[in-house]
């Protein structure tokens, strides 16, 4: 893995480049500069607590009162990012191995890795619990938030062939965590060689034509291009499709897929046996990079893309794969393609082409001549004028709908949900004991969970939207997950501590609402709403929503059985299920 040293020095050049481009569309200044007490000029100054709250909703799993205060005191978004870049990664496998303590004669997991398979049904929950704990408590919030975004681009899932391999899934997620700020090419390599992806997209044990099947499996060849790097159509640097005679131009055709499929032959897991039936037979094989068995690799020449790029005959498995991934990582489509997807995951569903282009430029060159530096890309995304001031400068279109998972991570973080000890069981047999939220997901249809998409196309595709928006070319992908039952109900179940709701049985996520309850007890409803607005909606709570909630509070203040805490819970529930909260901006 290439180590990015002195990354920060490189950024100075990046600032100049970005400034040179003129910033936002409306000619707005690209940042607020101000002098701190120490006399240092801050390029990305924090203008207000609300702005800080909005920033944290993009860069973390949800703003908390403490983190908002800290960021305001820090006064500098860039400084906050630099701190985050230095934060040691929280690895999910390490979490699982350290926390899961064997009970009733069961050994600790870390000493008996084969129990991952033996108890795979139960340990599926460990993958889930690790994710929730790290999302809520992890100090490396930015890294985890980016890893989550990547998990929705470079998708594997519990649904499908990985169902009974929780260790493979956790190990894969750690790849995303490890490489979240690394180069995209390194990430793509680590993803490609990981056995979880190999199994999920069926190229583990993929053999050259005539040895096992009549042709190599084309699954990964297709998706690594369509979904992980270059997309279907030629793109301008600003992410818009390049049209010829009014029509989009495909970047590749079926012949390219067949050529690319030959590249991804010869890999199997580290047990070294090529039979897929024999695969995944050990914890080590499920969690270590795949290896090549050269006799199954297609060594013939591969001609890729219409431009006639070539992987010459005679190459070995890894050499060919590395060459092909390098071609994909350096393809002109990849910078705008990946940049736009990451912007959509973190900031806004409909970025302006200029915003995409500014980020794509950083993707192409981080200022030190390095390509695909994800740390620099993430920084460019979060510090862009359109991210920091989109709500003001592009009010008609700026923002993204929150995903169900992010509602809950935010709720748990902001109100310090208390977890508890639970015992993981297989059937009636107790296996492991550890602290967790024991939170099952978001509703009857379980519409979203960590690594639980139904297909490699994720929970939603980047251009999805309800018809009224779609017909105008406006995307609102996350709304695919709304309108199904679950989010509001589960939120209210947690807020009101009603565990009779599906998925909340034995949940441990008690919200700490002392301050909110005290304000409600004193009938200081306006102040309570200000507080909730600051933490949850970053100052975007509308006058109408505010008034509706206030009238409710006033009308019911003296209801029988109404306590300060109950009122606080009602008001919190109304804010978090409001459209004002749904749209992150």
């Amino acid at each position: 893995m290439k180590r990015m040293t002195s990354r920060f020095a490189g950024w100075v050049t990046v600032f100049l480049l970005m400034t040179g481009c003129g910033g936002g569309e409306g000619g707005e200044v690209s940042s607020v500069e101000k002098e701190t007490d120490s006399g240092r000029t801050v390029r990305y100054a924090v203008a207000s607590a609300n702005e800080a709250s909005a920033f944290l909703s993009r860069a973390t799993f949800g703003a908390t009162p403490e983190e908002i205060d800290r960021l305001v005191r820090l006064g500098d978004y860039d400084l906050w990012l630099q701190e985050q870049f230095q934060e040691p990664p929280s690895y999910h496998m390490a979490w699982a191995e350290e926390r899961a303590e064997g009970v009733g004669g069961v050994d600790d997991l870390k000493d008996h890795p084969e129990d991952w398979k033996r108890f795979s049904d139960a340990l599926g929950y460990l993958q889930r619990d690790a994710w929730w704990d790290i999302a809520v408590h992890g100090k490396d919030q930015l890294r985890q938030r980016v890893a989550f975004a990547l998990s929705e681009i470079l998708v594997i899932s519990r649904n499908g062939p990985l169902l009974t391999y929780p260790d493979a899934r956790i190990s894969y997620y750690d790849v995303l965590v490890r490489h979240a700020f690394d180069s995209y090419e390194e990430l793509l390599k680590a993803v490609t060689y990981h056995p979880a992806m190999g199994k999920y997209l069926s190229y583990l044990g993929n053999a050259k034509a005539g040895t096992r099947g009549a042709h190599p499996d084309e699954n990964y060849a297709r998706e690594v291009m369509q979904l992980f790097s270059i997309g279907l159509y030629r793109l301008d640097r600003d992410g818009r499709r390049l049209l010829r005679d009014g029509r989009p131009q495909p970047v590749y055709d079926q012949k390219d897929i067949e050529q690319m499929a030959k590249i991804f032959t010869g890999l199997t897991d580290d047990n070294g046996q090529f039979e897929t039936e024999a695969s995944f037979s050990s914890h080590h094989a499920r969690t270590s990079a795949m290896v090549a068995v050269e006799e199954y690799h297609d060594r013939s020449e591969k001609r890729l893309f219409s431009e006639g790029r070539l992987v010459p005959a005679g190459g070995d498995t890894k050499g060919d794969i590395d060459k092909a991934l390098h071609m994909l990582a350096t393809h002109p489509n990849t910078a705008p393609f990946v940049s736009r997807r990451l912007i959509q995951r973190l900031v806004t569903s409909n970025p302006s082409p200029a915003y995409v282009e500014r980020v794509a430029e950083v993707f192409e060159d981080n200022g030190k001549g390095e390509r695909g530096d994800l740390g620099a890309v993430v920084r460019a995304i979060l510090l862009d004028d359109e991210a920091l001031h989109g709500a003001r400068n592009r009010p008609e279109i700026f923002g993204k709908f929150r995903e169900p998972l992010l509602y809950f991570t935010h709720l748990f973080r902001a109100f310090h949900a208390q977890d508890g000890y639970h015992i993981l069981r297989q059937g009636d047999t107790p296996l492991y004991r550890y602290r967790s939220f024991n939170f099952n997901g978001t509703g009857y249809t379980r519409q979203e969970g960590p690594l639980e998409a139904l297909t490699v196309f994720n929970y939603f595709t980047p251009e999805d939207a309800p018809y009224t928006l779609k017909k105008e070319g406006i995307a609102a992908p996350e709304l695919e997950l709304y309108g199904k039952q679950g989010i509001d109900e589960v939120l209210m179940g947690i807020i009101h501590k009603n565990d009779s709701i599906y998925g909340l049985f034995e949940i441990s996520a008690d919200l700490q609402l002392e301050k909110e309850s005290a304000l409600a007890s004193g009938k200081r409803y306006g102040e309570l709403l200000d507080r909730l607005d600051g933490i949850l909606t970053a100052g975007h709570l509308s006058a109408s929503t505010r008034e509706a909630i206030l009238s409710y509070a006033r009308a019911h203040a003296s209801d029988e059985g109404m306590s300060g805490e109950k009122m606080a819970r009602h008001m919190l529930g109304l804010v978090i299920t409001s459209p004002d909260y749904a749209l992150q901006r």
Partner: protein
Amino acid sequence: MKKSLNRREFLKRSAAGLLSLSPLGAMLASPERLDAAQTAGDYRAIVCVLLEGGADVFNMIVPTYRESYDDYRAVRKGLAVERESLLGFTHADAAGRNPLAYGMRSNMGRMHELFEKKRLALVANVGTLVRPTTAEEIREGGAVLPNQLFAHNTQRDLWMLGDAKNPHKMGWAARTADLFFPEGSPWCNITVGGNNLMQLGAVKEAVAFSDAAVSPDTMRYYGFGPEAGSGELGGVYQDIYEAMRGDGNRLMAAFAQKRVEELRRPDLLAGLFDGVREFDGFSTGVHETGVPLGKQLELVAKILSVRENFPGRPARQIFFVNHHGWDTHDSDNAHQTGYLSDSLGAFYDALEEMGLTERVTLFTLSDFGRSLSPNGAGTDHGWGSHAFVMGGAVKGGDIYGRMPELRPDSPDAWSDRMVPTTAMESYLATIVGWFGATEEELDAIFPNLRSFGTRNMDFMG
């Protein structure tokens, strides 16, 4: 069903390419203009089962006749199903085509039985086409092909849009709904399989049901969610969403509007599931991805059982069901076919119990077929594929269209994929024609239908 002037207006408008109707007008209009007497005797529903991922139907229907089985075996290699295990059926259509014997997988007993009872038909090698196309034309470079063949999302989208040539933003089921209910019926398009392009864009959005919708008590507890609005918090919730419809942010305004419509639904929902029928034949299957097919079809059956409770008693309903997990790169489809067959069988039983077999037609579609030859343990994305149509109004026990020869050098094969010999439009228009659309309307729903010789495949009675 009476034709209204509005349907003609719709046709004029769609001919001019102006498919959008005023959403405000639609909201104000009442769907109750169809009187009950009219609808009671003329109810028809179509149930679309999407086999998501690209179902390998070539391993569900296997030629068993001498050379054709040998061809199949040679091309399918390790994936080939043993001839002796197949549930055989013979077939010869009126024109004497397809005079060969076929078999279904051994775990497809229910579908086999329905085929033999002439309640299930097979539509051969159907797919997305811009115009009639042969493998030879493609090899010679003269063919116009649909965009992004073999990619899941684009091919599935073409099926949902019902047109591989012209761009559309509305799905074909939405266009159909707007013909029958020009002012919109909230109960025409119903999905139990999630949001989908097929039903997207009608005057009234498709109604999404899940299991929870049948017993909305927990939602009522807080007065939140789609089934609520009458509870005490629910009132506040309504005020909040109504006000936000006017928000300057277009995403916000659209979302608030959508929610307001959902919140108004409780009044309509009251009593909707009174007298709902329970069924016991549906199972949940094993190793399912997503909501099991059996649960979805059971919910469709339940909704059908209370269709008289629906406001306005719409005489036409289109259901969407999504059966995930057919992208079998790494396996054959044995585990899925048995469950598909059992679920379809249970649904047919439910229709029979309700006396609805003649009024409800179920049909399948999929992203695409699969490659002929295996890649090892599974198959890759293909193109043409067979589809199933089930119901009492189906002229079952027959194969429609032309069965391809499963050989790499078959005249229908292009680079290991089957070039469709029947356009999806011919297949879908036959179903929508039975649903009640006129020839003129079919051309409006499927603008590229006229590019293909067959307008009606005659599998519907």
